[in-house]
């Protein structure tokens, strides 16, 4: 029996559509993906990339982030270039805050630190949404032990779960970025 390869995508797309319908949640949308990317990279050329992680990469990313689960095998990210130079990489992370979800964009600068975080959608009551200034504190933070609400990230009175969920997402993204874009080995000084 022979099949056209296009059937593969149709079958998987149908399953994906079914899953989409199953996981639909009501959410307040503050920014679309495209708007968030424009906000982060004005005037830049942004290209979507997909990467498939090996199991070893998944394990490494989980170890770096300290997350309970390894990241998905499929990672999608957006690489921005402006004036011929690397302007940063954006990742989107959707996670549960209390019982419903939040989607944020984490922009990683060329040095591997967080450039900014934007909230795209938030399904919990807005009382649990920290103020914009809270998100600003992530700028410049690298992936280290300080990236924790117990340490270098200030929590929010009344929005502890959001603070923790956002910080965990930031760690996931930086870990994933480091696995996908390992720093070149240092050459010894002559």
């Amino acid at each position, binding site marked *: 029996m*022979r099949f056209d390869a296009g059937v593969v995508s149709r079958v998987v797309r149908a399953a994906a559509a079914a899953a*989409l319908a199953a996981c639909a949640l009501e959410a307040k949308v503050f920014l679309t*993906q495209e708007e968030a990317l424009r906000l982060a990279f*004005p005037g830049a050329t942004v290209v979507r990339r997909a990467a*498939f992680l090996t199991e070893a990469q998944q394990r490494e990313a989980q170890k770096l982030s300290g997350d309970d689960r390894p990241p998905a095998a499929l990672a999608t990210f957006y690489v921005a270039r402006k004036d011929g130079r690397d302007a940063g990489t954006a990742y989107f992370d959707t996670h549960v805050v209390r019982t419903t979800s939040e989607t944020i964009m984490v922009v990683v600068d060329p040095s591997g630190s967080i450039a900014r975080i934007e909230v795209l959608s938030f399904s919990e009551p807005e009382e649990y949404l920290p103020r*914009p*200034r809270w998100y600003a504190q992530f700028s410049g933070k690298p992936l280290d032990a300080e990236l924790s609400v117990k340490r270098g990230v200030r929590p929010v009175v009344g929005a*502890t779960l959001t603070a923790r969920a956002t910080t965990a997402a930031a760690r996931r993204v930086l870990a994933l970025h480091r696995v996908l874009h390992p720093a070149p080995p240092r050459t010894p000084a002559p």
Partner: protein
Amino acid sequence: MRRLSRFISVCLYVAAAGAAALAQAPATADERIERLEKLLAETRAEVSALKAASTGGATDVKLAEIERKIDILAGEIEAMKIGEAATPASAPATASTTLSATGKPVPQDTGERYGLGLSAAKVYGLRRGVSIGGYGEALYENFGERRQDGALSNRNDRIDFLRAVVYVGYKFDDRWVLNTEIEYEHAVTGEDAGGEVAVEFAYIDYLHSPAVNARAGLVLVPMGLVNELHEPTAFLGARRPDVERFILPTTWREIGGGVYGDTGPLSYRAYVTSSLDSADFSASNGIRSGRQQGAEATARDWALTGRLDFTRVPGLLVGASVFTGDTGQGRRTLEGGELDARTTVWDVHADWRWRGLQLRALYAGTSIGQAAEINALNGFTGNQSVGGRQEGWYVQGAFDLLSLTSSAKAALLPYVRYEQYDTQARVPAGFARNPANDNRELTLGLAFQPIDQLIFKADWQERRNAARTGVNQWNVALGYIF
């Protein structure tokens, strides 16, 4: 070519089997997405292997087409995970989307638009729906055998499922939202049981913008640190601070409405609600029993509540709130005049969190006009007087020991709280203060949070009062939210 056909057949079998399994297994959406991602990863790996072994020609063309479709699927799965905020379907769904080439104006980044950004007020596609949450707490109290003055306390130890609460919300659309909290207190209601069922709040929000929103219904009076954030994981201590029980009578709710929002470094609330009823004020409970709680409340007198919080520095909250209104509720004095009984409650509060450290402080005061007239109407004499002035304060500190480790998600918090309050700080001429209402409490405890939504607390309380009738106690509590 035969190898390619065989591979495609295998892919189809895997995909079909996967789809069939998706249809049959009671998998969550996340699990389904994970399976799809795994399938794609396997397919991608197989394609790469085939490309490596390919001799070129038509096979390479076909493989390139399969790769293109895999990238499309990757985009679809990403959109599925992100949901409504995903780039609209009308946008180019190719593996490489050049956003600056869409022809739309590119916003300039001012650097001041973190978090919600300038587009915070934009409303896109929306869905309707019900949301459910809740919390609960149980408390064991073990009382000392003797009072402060050495006499027998005659207090029986007790254990109680204080409250099991269900939140139910409904989003009519992106502007109109209903929030309710239904509370079951003390586990059982009935003729021989002391439990009760209460609506803690039930209000409708109109979400206009971050700066201005409106709320109406049975609302929580926005005072102090605990009243609006009274879930067991939100405060330390097996029992709530008594200052926020007797001076600020949590959980305090009244029917009314008002506006709230954030502007600059400030957040505010301003409500008009039903006022307290001075007919139920008392010496020891202060204004607590005067809460009307939306239950067939007398609505002759109304009150204004305002609150302002400064939140410019992440981790720091500093604010103040005030409630003021007449509480006579149509009663007349014994002389026949109208009883105003203007009551004003105010507080200043601060909460600071830095690394593992948590500090909290609050000062609250109440003044009640025509206290002598209230006493006369309520039949109070001697030291039974309503306090014309009531006040209290507390300071609390805690440190998360597990913040000293690099990876612990749990929290282990020793805490200490000292509070003073007096529900009869001042009484009208001709009445006396009861020293038993002049209280000092020291609480030493330990809280453990294995995960953010569960908390176990144990503490010891030294309870003193000026009448030397205080009884120490230790407590154990568990709490959950979901």
